[in-house]
């Protein structure tokens, strides 16, 4: 590799102005002696200036509207579940023994909770049915006391006559014919 081939990559940095002091003096001294490398440096300088002045173009007037339409189809970023890489790593780094311990503790808590609830529900059911029965008996007594003795519904079924009085039957027939 000739000296020029070694220097050439540094010339690119020299044009960019990013060479350190040591390499800068090496390149400057070489350019002072080598016309070809001096031409390379000059061309690179012209090229970088021209690239910096290439006119920029603008996207179409529909750009913002089209982008808005596409964005509207996306969910809001805040609606997404937030799982950072560090969170994921901490989840993955849990030891199996710790998982077993946590699982057993969770199972015990669930079992105790279930037992407690079952007992409570059973006693609650018994208490509630006793109260309801007592309330019904009480209500029945009040209703029976309020009804007159002539009312057949207030009498026991065994005490009611099997056949009705003929007079009462005739009266009911008249009533029925009146209704017609």
């Amino acid at each position, binding site marked *: 590799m000739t000296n020029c081939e070694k220097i050439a990559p540094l010339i690119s940095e020299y044009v*960019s102005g990013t060479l350190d002091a040591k390499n800068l003096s090496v390149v400057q001294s070489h350019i002072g002696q080598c016309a070809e490398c001096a031409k390379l440096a000059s061309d690179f300088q012209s*090229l970088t200036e*021209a690239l910096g002045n290439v006119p920029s173009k603008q996207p179409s007037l529909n*750009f913002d509207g*089209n*982008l808005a339409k*596409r964005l509207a189809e996306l969910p809001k970023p805040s609606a997404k579940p937030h799982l950072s890489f560090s969170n994921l790593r901490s989840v993955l780094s849990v030891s199996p023994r710790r998982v077993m311990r946590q699982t057993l503790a969770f199972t015990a808590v669930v079992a105790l909770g279930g037992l407690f609830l079952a007992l409570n529900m059973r006693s609650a059911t018994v208490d509630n049915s006793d109260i309801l029965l007592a309330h019904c008996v009480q209500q029945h007594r009040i209703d029976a006391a309020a009804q007159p003795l002539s009312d057949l519904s207030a009498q026991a079924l065994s005490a009611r006559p099997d056949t009705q009085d003929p007079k009462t039957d005739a009266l009911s027939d008249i009533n029925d014919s009146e209704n017609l």
Partner: protein
Amino acid sequence: MIGQWARDAVNFTQGICVDNPDKVLVNRCLAGDDYAFSEIIGRYKGKLYNYILRMTSDAEDAEDLTQEVFIRMYSSLDSFRRQSSLNTWLFRIASNICIDSYRRNKKHKAIAYSLDEPAFGDDSSESSHEAPDISYEPHRVFMRIETAGQIENALKKLPEKLREVVLLYDVEGISYEEIAQIADCPLGTVKSRLFNGRAQLRKLLTDYTSN
């Protein structure tokens, strides 16, 4: 209503006056401020569009892919690590999108850039004998535009990785370190790609002018 306007005005002023407006805008975006997101679009759409246009050489694709950059940004804003600047992050997304697009297109059509194709458009015969002109004299403005056209054409002929670095460094003015993050390669690779890209551009432009 007036309160909302006042908040918008304060946010807008904050975005302009602080040392790192991008950081403020990102924080506001994360807080659900759509106005900040549109600010970011306004700041970056031109730069990203020009970069992608020169990478893809297709205006319609460039517009679509530039929108894709903002969509990806919007979707993954909560995963944005503040180790790099917003500028670096957006150009990295753009770079990845260009690579994806290049690979997709490569499957469908063979892209062959021929050095024999007309170098300077329809009126190449008139401009082909002009030396590259970087002067700023008013009477040479037309010639300078022709030179810009020559550069655009020469850029299209560069290999993708070299073009990426040349565009980011010489056109966008992004530092070596940031380009290393964007292109996901070591610093030395950025420098060597820049040198090779410039050398190839020089050769292409010398060939044009000598023709």
